[in-house]
C-alpha cells in the first residue's frame, strides 16, 4: 500500500518538475518521436501538446540541424549523457535561441527506454558573453591604437597585457613579457625608479606620474600608472627628444646667464678703473709723475673697454649667423696650413716643430673663416703656453670616417693645465688659467663657439708640464 503511495508521490513530484521546469524538456524514443513535452517546450514551439506528441522531433528542426540532433540522440541511446550548445530556430517560429542541451538516457531494468532532452535557454547568457568578447576585442583594439605604450601588471607584477608599442619601446617580444614578472624581465631595474614608483602606486592605491630614464633602451620615458583591483595599468611614451631639448635649453640658458655675468663684469672692470682714474686725476698735480701714469692708465682702460665691446660684437655676430650660412666643403689641410703660416714668425721664434697628418683630400663641412679661426687660436695658444723646458712640438692629426665626420687631434707638448681643476671652465669666456702670460680668455671661447656653430664638438685633455690635446669632432 505504502509502496504504491510512494510511487504516486514520486510520480507527482516528477510531473511537477516536468510541468513547471523553465527549461525545455522532451522525452523521446529511439526514433526521435516525442513521447512527452513540457509546457516550456510547447510555448517556444507555439503548439499544443496534441500537435507535438507522437511526431518526430526532427520535424520541428531546421533541416541543417536534423543530422546533429539525430547523432546526439544515438549517442544518448548508447548510454552516454550528452551535452552540447546549439543555436536553433524551430520550424514555424520566428525567434532563434541558444540552448545548452543535455540528453539523459532513461534506463529501465537495464534497457534504455527513452531519452530525456533538457534544453536550457542560454540566449541571454550567450549574448552577454558575446558582448564581453566584443568589448574585450574593442578594448584590445583601443590599447593597440593609442599612441602610448600600455601594459597591465597583475598584483604579482606579472605582465598580463602588452600592446605593440610596449614591444617597441621596451625592446621585448610580447611572448617574452606575458606571464613573467617585471623583476624577471628587467632585473637591472630592481632598485630603479620604475620599481620604486610602481611599488608606491601598489601600496598607496594612488596613481603615479613620473619621468625616468630606461637604461636598457637608452630612452627617457614618461609614465602614468593607475592601480586597480587587478593590479596596475601602465601607460608610457618616449619623451627622449623632449628631455634632450629641455636639457639643451637649460644649457643654453646657463650659457646665456654666464655670458651676461661675464660681459657685465668685463665691461665694468675697465669702466670702474676709468671712473676711479678720472676721480684721481682731478685731485693730483698735473706735473707730478703720478698724473702721467694715471692718464696713461685711463687711456689703457678705455682701450680695454673698447676691446671688450669688440669681442662682444665678434661673438654676437657668430651667434647671429648660426642659421644663415650654408656650410661648405672646406679642404682641412689648406685652412690648417693657412693658420700656421700666419703664425710662422711666432712659431719660428720658439723653434716650434709642426707635424701635420692630414690626408690631402680630407674635407670638413663648415665655414672656412671659422675653421681658420679655430686653428689660428689653437696654434697661438700652443705658442703662448709652451713649456720653456723643451722646444715646442705641435701635431695635428685628422681622420675622416664615413658618415661620422672628421676627427681632429690637436696636440702640443706645452705647459698644460690641470684638467680636474679647470674642467669645462677652460672654454669659458674671459676665464684665464695663467698669470704669467697675457691674455684675456677669449680664444678658447671663440674656438668652442665656432666648433659648435658648425655642428661639431670639442673636448680637451691636458697634463701639467706634459702638454694639451684638443679633440675636435667636425662634420
Amino acid at each position, binding site marked *: 500500500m505504502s509502496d504504491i503511495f510512494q510511487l504516486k508521490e514520486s510520480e507527482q513530484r516528477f510531473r511537477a518538475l516536468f510541468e513547471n521546469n523553465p527549461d525545455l524538456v522532451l522525452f523521446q524514443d529511439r526514433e526521435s518521436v516525442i513521447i512527452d513535452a513540457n509546457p516550456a517546450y510547447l510555448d517556444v514551439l507555439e503548439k499544443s501538446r496534441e500537435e507535438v506528441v507522437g511526431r518526430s522531433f526532427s520535424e520541428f528542426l531546421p533541416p541543417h540541424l536534423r543530422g546533429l540532433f539525430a547523432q546526439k540522440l544515438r549517442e544518448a541511446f548508447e548510454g552516454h549523457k550528452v551535452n552540447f550548445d546549439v543555436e536553433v530556430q524551430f520550424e514555424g517560429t520566428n525567434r532563434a535561441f541558444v540552448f545548452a542541451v543535455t540528453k539523459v538516457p532513461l534506463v529501465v531494468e537495464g534497457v534504455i527506454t527513452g531519452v530525456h532532452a533538457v534544453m536550457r535557454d542560454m540566449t541571454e547568457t550567450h549574448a552577454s558573453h558575446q558582448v564581453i568578447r566584443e568589448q574585450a576585442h574593442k578594448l584590445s583594439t583601443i590599447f593597440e591604437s593609442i599612441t602610448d605604450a600600455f601594459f597591465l601588471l597583475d598584483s604579482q607584477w606579472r605582465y598580463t597585457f602588452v600592446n605593440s608599442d610596449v614591444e617597441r619601446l621596451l625592446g621585448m617580444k610580447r611572448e617574452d613579457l606575458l606571464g613573467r614578472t617585471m623583476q624577471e624581465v628587467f632585473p637591472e631595474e630592481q632598485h630603479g625608479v620604475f620599481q620604486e614608483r610602481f611599488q608606491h602606486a601598489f601600496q598607496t592605491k594612488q596613481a603615479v606620474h613620473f619621468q625616468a630614464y630606461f637604461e636598457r633602451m637608452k630612452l627617457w620615458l614618461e609614465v602614468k600608472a593607475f592601480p586597480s583591483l587587478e593590479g596596475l595599468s601602465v601607460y608610457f611614451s618616449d619623451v627622449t627628444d623632449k628631455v634632450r631639448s629641455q636639457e639643451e635649453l637649460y644649457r643654453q640658458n646657463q650659457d646665456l646667464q654666464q655670458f651676461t*655675468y661675464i660681459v*657685465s*663684469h668685463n665691461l*665694468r*672692470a*675697465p*669702466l*670702474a*678703473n676709468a*671712473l*676711479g*682714474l678720472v*676721480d*684721481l686725476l682731478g*685731485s*693730483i698735480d698735473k706735473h707730478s709723475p*703720478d698724473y702721467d*701714469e*694715471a692718464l696713461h*692708465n685711463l687711456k*689703457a*682702460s678705455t682701450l680695454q673697454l673698447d676691446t671688450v665691446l669688440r669681442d662682444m660684437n665678434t661673438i654676437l655676430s657668430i651667434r647671429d649667423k648660426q642659421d644663415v650660412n650654408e656650410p661648405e666643403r672646406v679642404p682641412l689641410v689648406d685652412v690648417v696650413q693657412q693658420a700656421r703660416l700666419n703664425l710662422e714668425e711666432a712659431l719660428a721664434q720658439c723653434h716650434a716643430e709642426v707635424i701635420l697628418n692630414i690626408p690631402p683630400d680630407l674635407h670638413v663641412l663648415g665655414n672656412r673663416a671659422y675653421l681658420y679661426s679655430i686653428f689660428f687660436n689653437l696654434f697661438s695658444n700652443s705658442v703662448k703656453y709652451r713649456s720653456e723646458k723643451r722646444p715646442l712640438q705641435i701635431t695635428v692629426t685628422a681622420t675622416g670616417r664615413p658618415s661620422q665626420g672628421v676627427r681632429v687631434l690637436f696636440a702640443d707638448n706645452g705647459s698644460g693645465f690641470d684638467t680636474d681643476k679647470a674642467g669645462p671652465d677652460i672654454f669659458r669666456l674671459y*676665464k*684665464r*688659467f*695663467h*698669470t704669467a702670460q697675457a691674455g684675456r*680668455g677669449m680664444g678658447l671661447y671663440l674656438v668652442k663657439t665656432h666648433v659648435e656653430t658648425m655642428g661639431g664638438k670639442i673636448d680637451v685633455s691636458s697634463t701639467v708640464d706634459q702638454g694639451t690635446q684638443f679633440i675636435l669632432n667636425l662634420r
Partner: protein
Amino acid sequence: MDTLLIDDDSIGVFLTERLLKREGFDGNITSFSSAQDALEHLQAAEPNSLPQLIFLDLNMPVMDGWEFLDALKPQETQLLGRCHVYILTSSLAHSDACRIREFPLVAGLIHKPLDAAQIHAVRAQVEAAASLR
C-alpha cells in the same frame, strides 16, 4: 695702518694705492697680483706683522678671491680681529654680496672704483675694531 692689495689688474692696484695715499693712508701698502702669492705671504707672516686691512679682488686667474678666502679658513681664528678683509670688485652680482656671509673675515664688499667716502668709512671701521681689542 698696514694694507694689502690683492688684484691681478695693475691699473686697479695703481688706482687703489694712489687713492688710499690721497686719503691719508700712511702705513705700508703692499700689493700682490696673484692671490696664491698673497696667501703664502700671509701664511708666513708673524702675527704682529699682519696687515690690518686687505683689499681683495674676486675675479683673478688661477686662484680667485673666493678660493683665497677658502684657503685662509684654517687660519681664520688667528686672523679674526687682526685682519679686516674688504672685497673690492667691479662685479655688481648679488650672489657675491650674499656669499661674503660665509666668511667672517670679510668685513665688507665695495664695488670699484673706491672713492674717498668709502675709504674713510673703511678706516673708521678698522680703527673702531682695533680700539675694542
